[in-house]
């Protein structure tokens, strides 16, 4: 006979029945994919899929395909159905890891809400893109407010609107969802994608944060191009996640639907609504404190840099800063020595990583000595650009008002060429010299203003 699971009251959450879900058993039944550090060739979608295969806490992944995120799902389906994750329990074959096919992205998001609520110790994720992310919106915003930090929605950036339909990468989807309440992190390069995935659940599930996460990388430019990827052994991956989760206060972890006597998703009147929003805001802001701690532990355990609020390149002596995100940063970083020489100005580059909550204060501090800023928006926006708004808001909070030139390029995954970066750098240097912006925004392609 099995023991009756013991009741433990958990604050306002109701009760948790401690042994109802035997997590140790779930861990024991995990079939490791990598026993040692292994270098492979992988595209971005595979790099984002592998952590779900390695975590014992990820037992089911939700799926609905959309270009360019499809291979994430295909890779997981092939791996989970290939027999590697099958175990025998009392003479029966059991698949310990599964892909759940849903009928639409909205259903995938609903499924994630239910699964993550069922057990808040396990990690549940999906990957999507563009209009797929939009189709999830109704539930994404519920998830953002839910406290279900064990949800990971991988967004493979793609131009959002269908007029015209374009399946190549541009971050208008991710940037259009900045108010959904997720911790949104942008990645570039396969290793950064993989490493980001390994760390994010530890941030999202931290008891001070309890906010779902949305790692993102560019469709095609990162999703469909392969590079060398160091995959860590499963044992190390899981030990890190356990250790990082333990950074949080113990004993406050709320019960799930399966192991608890609890409720989620109540309705309120205006008399109470705002107090829930105070909690939500406090939780997402806590990510600014928790993320560096998780990152430090990651660096200690794996020897590679952990999550950053943003990357800084030659910012120590910069007079001018170029702010951008995603894989096109690689081009300007290559060009940087030439640009500094050609334009006779000390140019630095900031590559944004944490998009929400936007790290305004740290950002303003990093830019406290520059005389002009050039912000590269790769997504359509009605005005000066999503990132321009974040950057100007951060600077205005600090009381400094250097001119901020706003650029649109790379929309729909268009190439952001060396000539385009040169034009961007030239206009920003000009703004530093004149002390003012030359126009409200520039749209640049192949170095030519459109």
């Amino acid at each position: 006979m099995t023991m009756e699971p013991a009741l433990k009251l958990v604050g306002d959450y109701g009760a948790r029945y401690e042994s109802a879900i035997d997590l140790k058993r779930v861990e024991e039944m995990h079939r490791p994919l990598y026993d040692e550090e292994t270098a492979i060739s992988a595209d971005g979608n595979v790099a984002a899929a592998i952590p779900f295969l390695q975590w014992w806490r990820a037992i089911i992944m939700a799926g609905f395909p959309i270009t360019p995120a499809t291979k994430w799902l295909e890779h997981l389906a092939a791996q989970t159905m290939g027999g590697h994750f099958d175990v025998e329990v009392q003479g029966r074959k059991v698949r310990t890891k599964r892909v759940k096919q849903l009928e639409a992205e909205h259903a995938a998001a609903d499924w994630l809400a239910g699964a993550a609520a069922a057990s808040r110790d396990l990690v549940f994720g999906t990957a999507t893109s563009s209009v797929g992310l939009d189709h999830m919106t109704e539930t994404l915003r519920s998830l953002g407010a839910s406290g279900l930090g064990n949800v990971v929605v991988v967004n493979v950036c793609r131009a959002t609107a269908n007029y015209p339909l374009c399946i190549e990468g541009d971050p208008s989807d991710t940037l259009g969802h900045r108010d959904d309440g997720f911790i949104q992190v942008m990645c570039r390069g396969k290793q950064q994608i993989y490493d980001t995935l390994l760390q994010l659940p530890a941030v999202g599930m931290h008891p001070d944060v309890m906010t779902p996460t949305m790692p993102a990388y560019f469709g095609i430019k990162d999703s469909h191009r392969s590079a060398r990827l160091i995959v860590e052994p499963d044992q190390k991956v899981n030990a890190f996640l356990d250790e990082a989760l333990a950074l949080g206060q113990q004993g406050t972890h709320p019960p799930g639907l399966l192991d608890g006597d609890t409720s989620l998703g109540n309705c309120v009147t205006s008399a109470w609504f705002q107090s829930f929003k105070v909690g939500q805001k406090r939780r997402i802001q806590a990510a600014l404190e928790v993320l560096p701690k998780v990152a430090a532990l990651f660096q200690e355990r794996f020897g590679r840099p952990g999550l950053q609020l943003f990357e800084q390149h030659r910012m120590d002596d910069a007079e001018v800063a170029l702010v951008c995100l995603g894989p096109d940063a690689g081009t300007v970083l290559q060009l940087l020595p030439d640009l500094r020489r050609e334009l006779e100005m000390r140019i630095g580059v900031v590559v944004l990583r944490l998009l929400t909550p936007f790290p305004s204060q740290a950002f303003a501090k990093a830019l406290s000595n520059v005389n002009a800023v050039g912000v590269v928006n790769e997504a359509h926006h009605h005005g000066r650009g999503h990132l321009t708004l974040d950057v100007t808001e951060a600077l205005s909070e600090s009381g400094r008002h250097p001119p901020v030139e706003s650029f649109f390029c790379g929309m729909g995954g268009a190439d952001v060429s060396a000539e385009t970066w040169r034009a961007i750098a030239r206009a920003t240097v000009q703004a530093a010299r004149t002390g003012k912006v030359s126009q409200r925004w520039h749209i640049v392609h192949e170095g030519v203003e459109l």
Partner: protein
Amino acid sequence: MARPLPTFKEHALREDAFVEGHALCPGCMEAVTFHEVGRATDNGKKTVLTLGTFCGEVSTLMYPNLISWGRGPQSPELFGKSLGVMHNVFESSPTIAEAVRDVATVLEGVGAWKAPSPNVVALSGDGGALAIGLRSLLHTIQRRARIAIFVQMNEVFANTGFQFSPTALPFADSSTAPGGLPEDPIDHVGLAIAAGAAFVAQGSPAFAPFFAEVAEEAINTSNGTAVVFVPSPCIAGWKFEEGLTAELGKLASQTGLFPCFRKRAGEPGEVKHVPEKGKRPPVEQYLVKQRRFEHLARLVDGEIRVTPGREGDLAKLQSYADRNVERLKKWAAF
């Protein structure tokens, strides 16, 4: 069935899970249904309830009121008596219930869940299940998710103020379709069967033993999705006098508009509590008790008075009721 279902008496003596504190209208059939769901799930298994947005949600999970779900005022010591309750957007209750079942299935499979397999029950309005949520309802059924779904059929979007729903009877007045629309409502029973449900029923708690049997059978269905459509007279939306809820529940079946029905996949089903044609009460008897149909017919001094010029529309409603019974008989034999 793998094991015999409890008798009506055993069912009635079970511990309820729908408790004080809800804000449903007095006379709302949903409350009766929820009591029955509460009793049917008091079977020693952990219960998870998922709710889409509908009257039954906003009236039972209203913070800071007491949540009106649970067995007793505190969390029970016995795990098998405990409840997990979750609300998400309108159309989502089948999908979130399916997710809970999926997680439980893997945990059971690897030996990490040692308690009896949980009851997973989705509650939804008919708008949530058959208008905005038709996609999620049918696909959860198609995937053979091992959950029970109870759909409260009140033929209007009651929660938002009684707007038109595709489940509405012809000519039923609603706030967005004054005087109603002439089309037949969606064939909800047929859709659920066609999608592959393991068990499909329609039944009113007004037929108490029948409904208790259906609720027990739905919750104990283990080879796919069980769907129970519950005709739910809406006192505010249908505008009827207090005390008529059960009577309307009975007449809905007896007239052929919402007959009692149950069917297990692969077995012949049955259409119940509707007399043979000729012996059925005419639809007017049902309609005149509700002011949503007063533009067609009303009671004057105890007599049914049909509005001049609307005889054809009444005939159309009668024809729908008769065709509905025949259609359900065909589905029963499917």
